[in-house]
């Protein structure tokens, strides 16, 4: 096989060679320390955050890393807190890959990757203490906020977890809790714009606030996925790269440099300690980049609102 491909190389068009011998095609690039999309091995694709694209959701964000596009939206609902944590709300995170995002996904046959990423997002966001669930309480033991955070992949082109986490974090950072109060039947109603009439009509408006409030965020988690192949380490892989060279390693760090998660879902390439260290070092650099991008997007959001 190897010898045959060498023979054919001279007379074959580049695109045909890429399709027929994808691994050889990549290895020839990698030996020159460059990727087919002209990126150096350790450079992530251009990343952007579109602030609040959906006005009808309570918060939303769209993230693009190269062609990979994620849209996250938050809907707030009211729940009755459980008896063991009466003054805590809840957050439910779900990741979807609708059939529009990739030719591999068909309706009725959900993508295998989706529940895995869903679980990873849950683990990272819960263990990073990004949100204090106590802040979601409305009235202790009576009502609390349930945050439904849903992330949709609109275009799948590799490094799905990185993009999903960034869009989830951007939506949470933008979330504003609307003012509400408990009415006489113990139901929660909006007190926006009718704050005065509410306080006049029912005297027992406990914990009613009349202004939107933002959540105080803990340290924000950011992630970087690296692809391992032989001695090479490719940062932020595309879908094509992931399908040809399937060993991935995802590092999640927070802004103060704490390691939140390290995820290597098997694969034929084993990671040496030194490789893992390299990945963490690359992730540390990437976190600085992402932190800056998120900060800029959030200030842009504030400008739009005011």
């Amino acid at each position, binding site marked *: 096989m190897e010898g045959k491909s060498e023979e054919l190389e001279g007379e074959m068009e580049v695109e045909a060679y890429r399709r027929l011998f994808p691994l050889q095609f990549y290895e020839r690039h990698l030996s020159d320390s460059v990727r087919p999309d002209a990126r150096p091995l350790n450079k992530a694709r251009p990343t952007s955050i579109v602030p609040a694209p959906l006005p009808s959701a309570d918060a939303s964000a769209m993230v693009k890393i190269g062609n990979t596009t994620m849209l996250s939206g938050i809907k707030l609902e009211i*729940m009755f807190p459980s008896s063991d944590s009466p003054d805590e709300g809840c957050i439910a995170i779900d990741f979807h890959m609708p059939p529009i995002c990739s030719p591999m996904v068909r309706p009725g046959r959900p993508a295998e990757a989706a529940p895995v990423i869903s679980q990873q997002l849950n683990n990272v966001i819960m263990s990073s203490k990004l949100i204090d669930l106590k802040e979601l309480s409305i009235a202790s033991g009576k009502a609390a906020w349930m945050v439904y955070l849903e992330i*949709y992949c609109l275009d799948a082109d590799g490094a799905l977890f990185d993009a999903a986490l960034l869009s989830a974090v951007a939506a949470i950072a933008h979330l504003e809790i609307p003012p509400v109060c408990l009415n006489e039947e113990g139901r929660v109603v909006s007190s926006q714009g009718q704050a005065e009439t509410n306080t006049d009509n029912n005297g027992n408006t406990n914990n009613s606030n009349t202004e939107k409030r933002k959540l105080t965020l803990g340290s924000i988690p950011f992630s970087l996925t690296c692809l391992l192949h032989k001695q090479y380490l490719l940062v932020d892989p595309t879908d094509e790269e992931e399908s040809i060279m399937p060993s991935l390693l995802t590092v999640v760090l927070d802004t103060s440099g704490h390691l939140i998660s390290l995820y290597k879902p098997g694969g034929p390439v084993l990671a040496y300690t030194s490789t893992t260290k390299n990945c963490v070092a690359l992730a540390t650099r990437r976190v600085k980049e992402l932190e800056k991008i998120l900060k800029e997007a959030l200030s842009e959001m504030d400008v739009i609102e005011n």
Partner: protein
Amino acid sequence: MASKSGTISTYSPLFSRKNPNFTNGVRSDGRHFHECRLAFLRTGAVNAASGSAYAEFGNTKVIVSVFGPRESKKAMMYSDTGRLNCSVSFTTFSTPIRGQGSEHKEFSSMLHKALEGAIMLETFPKTTVDVFALVLESGGSELPVIISCASLALADAGIAMFDLVTSVSVSCFKDDLVIDPVFEEESCQDGSLMIVCMPLRNEVTQLTVTGEWSTPKVHEAMDLCLGACSKLGDIMRLCLKEAASTLQ
């Protein structure tokens, strides 16, 4: 956590809903009765697809991806003509109250029926073209937007069609006809009419009329829709031309 949340029953806090009011022939969003929302169309929204389009009409935002022509499902019988497969889904946060998008189960088959007459199925025998739509935000008149956006995506994918397919709907309030209604208007309309047509050929592929209508009103509404459809067709053609010229 996900399994835990599945068992918790939640409800949306009651936010005051605005009813549409028509004062001096002006609607709540400042439009006149016979004025459509501003439209933004763009092809090539999804790189992984053979063709795709994004459409934004006011707050209604839709992405359509087209895959294929590709191998039909194994279980499918041999067919001389191509197959068209359509699926419409909503994001859970698209509707004002979470998760209401799943109520529109009929949209997939409506989209299929609206498009099949316009596509030259005999040009791709034995294979299937998949048209998948995702509604990112529903601000009213979703189905007409999905259909128009789907035909734009089909054109972007290079699927042969007799003409672009465009669609516009009208809501009826007693004596008033309101074109391209928003969510609030649709929820308290007396009747609605939707036309799907191929404007250059002057052919209608789908027409739905619901609610209370008088004959002259139906005629008036159809003329209104057809006029808007042909204008929308011009805009879509312009969008395709622009996309083609930037490629060169």
